[in-house]
């Protein structure tokens, strides 16, 4: 049996754990550069007229009118809280597949002496007790069914109390009949539209289709989902997260910028961020993409956007090499006379360090630099990000960076930002 555990409105509830004044009140979290709403708790979702993924400037008035509290995203906090949840899960089973920051599959097959419903509640209650985060638990014989069970656990809360187990044929059929085909994990909008077109509205009806039809029309991927819904496990359990295929970052500037030097500094700063992530995964990148664009939403400004992808002569994770390549790339795509809104970088072709090959012209990868990067990272980990940085990043960060005003304190990782308790006279 496989359990899917996921945190309810994870980013928003992470914020609420430390803010009891916001318990039971609507809370939303905004994307990295405060561009749009990326998470909302159930109180905020219940308010009609707050669309997700809308630019904030369009809905700010509605947020304020509805007394919605909004936070800039605090990924340091969410990442640390996520780590706690995953650690707790690994005390329930040796096999945990971390699926995303707020979701994990847990293999609970070995727990033969417990009722699955009891075990599910144990998981849920322990996570809430230790971290204050509410989770939903779905338990079923396959991953796709576990996903479905998890959905049901949340939909009928009074009945299921956040835990739903598919452990009998009747329950499986009941769940399949309940599930709209578009909500099945792995069935995209294109396929669900098509299925609905031929009268397949629920997961149950989908399982009644012949296997050959599914294979022919929805490839082997569709067939796996079909099998999984029948209770036949077809998607393997991966306990190690797959290495990332690409790492990138792109943020809007605080104001529109024309100056190439300033854009280069922002770009170098993003390179520093992503190459640090790359090194922490002990990997190197083969390709570097740099892109640049003006503000699409503005009618007054002349529009321009472009991107370029550089193939690195030797895959690397060296901040300095990547910055100099990015600088060259930026020179190619930059055009004067435009007011730019955003620059972004993306590293791809990611391979483990020990697979890096030299080539005829630069035969040995420059290992001595890696030693430098190692020290660089160590210092930055100990004394805080950007204690050491490349000179090309410059010191004008304040001029281009969008200031995150509403970010909550990093309660669990910074001594200076601990939860503060003001004690007043009784």
């Amino acid at each position, binding site marked *: 049996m496989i359990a899917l555990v996921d945190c309810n409105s994870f980013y928003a509830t992470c914020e609420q754990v430390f803010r*009891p004044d916001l318990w039971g009140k609507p809370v939303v979290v905004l994307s990295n550069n405060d561009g749009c709403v990326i998470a909302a708790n159930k109180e905020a979702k219940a308010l009609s007229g707050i669309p997700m993924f809308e630019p904030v400037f369009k809905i700010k008035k509605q947020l304020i009118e509805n007394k919605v509290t909004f936070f800039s995203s605090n990924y340091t906090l969410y990442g640390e809280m996520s780590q*706690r949840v995953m650690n707790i899960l690994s005390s329930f089973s040796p096999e945990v597949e971390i699926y995303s920051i707020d979701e994990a599959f847990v293999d609970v097959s070995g727990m033969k002496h417990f009722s699955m419903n009891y075990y599910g509640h144990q998981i849920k209650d322990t996570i809430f007790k*230790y*971290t204050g985060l509410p989770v939903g638990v779905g338990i079923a014989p396959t991953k796709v069914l576990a996903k479905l069970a998890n959905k049901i656990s949340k939909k009928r809360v009074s009945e299921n109390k956040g835990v739903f187990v598919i452990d009998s044929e009747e329950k499986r059929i009941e769940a399949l009949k309940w599930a709209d085909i578009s909500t099945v994990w792995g069935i995209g909008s294109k396929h669900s539209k098509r299925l609905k077109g031929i009268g397949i509205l629920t997961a149950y009806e989908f399982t009644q289709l012949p296997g050959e039809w599914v294979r022919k029309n929805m490839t082997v991927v569709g067939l796996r989902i079909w099998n999984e819904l029948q209770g036949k496990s077809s998607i393997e359990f991966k306990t190690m997260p797959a290495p990332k295929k690409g790492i990138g970052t792109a943020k809007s500037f605080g104001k529109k910028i024309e100056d190439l030097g300033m854009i280069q500094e922002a770009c170098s700063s993003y390179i520093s961020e992503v190459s640090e992530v790359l090194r922490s995964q002990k990997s190197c990148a083969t390709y570097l993409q740099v892109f640049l664009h003006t503000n699409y939403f503005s009618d007054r400004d002349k529009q321009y956007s472009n991107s370029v992808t550089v193939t690195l002569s030797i895959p690397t994770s060296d901040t300095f090499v990547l910055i100099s390549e990015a600088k060259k790339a930026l020179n190619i795509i930059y055009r004067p006379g435009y007011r730019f809104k955003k620059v972004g970088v993306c590293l791809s072709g990611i391979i483990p360090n020990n697979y890096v090959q030299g080539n005829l012209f630069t035969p040995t990868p420059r290992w001595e630099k890696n030693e430098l990067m190692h020290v660089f990272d160590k210092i930055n980990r100990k004394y805080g990000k950007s204690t050491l940085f490349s000179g090309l990043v410059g010191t004008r960060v304040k001029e281009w960076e969008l200031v995150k005003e509403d970010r909550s304190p990093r309660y669990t990782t910074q001594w200076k930002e601990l*939860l503060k*308790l*003001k*004690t007043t006279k*009784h």
Partner: protein
Amino acid sequence: MEIFSSGKLSKIKNSHVSRISKQTGFPSPAAHYAEPSIDLHDELIANRDATFYVRIDGDELSNYNILDKDVLLIDRSLTPKKNDLVLVVLDGEFKVIRFSGASLETEFILWGLISYIIHYAR
């Protein structure tokens, strides 16, 4: 700017394990007795995944031995017993109270048990 040239620098590792000379002299008699240095986490934190920190601002909890700028360690995994200090929520606000008995007064919501109070002694 002056440029110094130096011979090969040997790195000194900042480590608390007693070092043994490889070339000369007597082997360190401590080598077989080496242990890692004291780590406060071992003593103060029983359950990392359930432990949170709170900084106190103000002197009003001195009757509980909690002073201004103290750090409280809150272990949410522990179940409070009578007379334990606990962090609770009342009307949307954090409060520190002494737990009175078997069940918590209904108006309070338990946030976590205070397992340690750290204060600076000077």
